[in-house]
């Protein structure tokens, strides 16, 4: 299991290659990569602030929760901070499991928790100003499907 918080870019393909290498019992690997997207507002960059110390702890806790809920062979979480241009990778999760259901579900769970429970804050920087991205109620609602009985 690895959790990385970094300002440097990463190569999602190379990460997948390294994560997949040498696995003999994992029949399924799922990855998700988040990319900085311009929603038609003329976005210049996304600035991502985080809480050093708590961030690593929160991501590690979320990854541990995923491992305790599903039978996973491995988990990778990468999340960047700093100023990221449009088209740049923001974050990535990868899960390895014997079968795809666990790998897909665990990746989905990791994403839902990363969105609302990891201490990152996004600010959109445009030519005409900048704004903090507001949390969406639907992101908070998405967590309930993992907690309801």
């Amino acid at each position, binding site marked *: 299991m690895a959790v990385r918080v970094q300002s440097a870019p990463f190569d999602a393909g190379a990460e997948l290659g390294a994560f997949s290498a040498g696995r003999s019992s994992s029949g399924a690997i799922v990855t998700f990569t988040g990319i900085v997207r311009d929603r038609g507002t003329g976005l210049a960059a996304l600035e991502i602030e985080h809480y050093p110390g708590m961030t690593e702890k929160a991501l590690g806790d979320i990854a541990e929760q995923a491992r305790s809920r599903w039978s996973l062979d491995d988990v990778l979480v990468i999340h960047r901070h700093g100023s990221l241009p449009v088209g740049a990778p923001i974050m990535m999760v990868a899960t390895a499991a014997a079968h795809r259901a666990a790998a897909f579900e665990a990746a989905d769970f990791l994403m839902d928790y990363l969105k609302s429970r990891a201490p990152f804050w996004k*600010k959109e920087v445009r030519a005409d100003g900048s704004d903090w991205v507001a949390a969406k109620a639907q992101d*908070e609602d998405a967590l309930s499907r993992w907690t309801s009985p």
Partner: protein
Amino acid sequence: MIDVLYFAWVRERIGLPRERVETEAATVRDLVEELRGREDRYDLAFTDIAALRVAVDQELSDFDAPLAGVREIAFFPPMTGG
């Protein structure tokens, strides 16, 4: 002494990322009231605490959490990771 940290727009409104605070406050909520009484910029940042989240010693917590033995408190808006 408690280290108090601010992130995102809370940091911008208060005008600094962290400070050390001498306080006798019993809970996070009491600390917030103390800070609000200091200056307008704190009052402005903490006007609507329902819009804020708090971490106590780097764990998500709530405004009723006790401060005894706590080293670090952080205030921030709802997180937008992913």
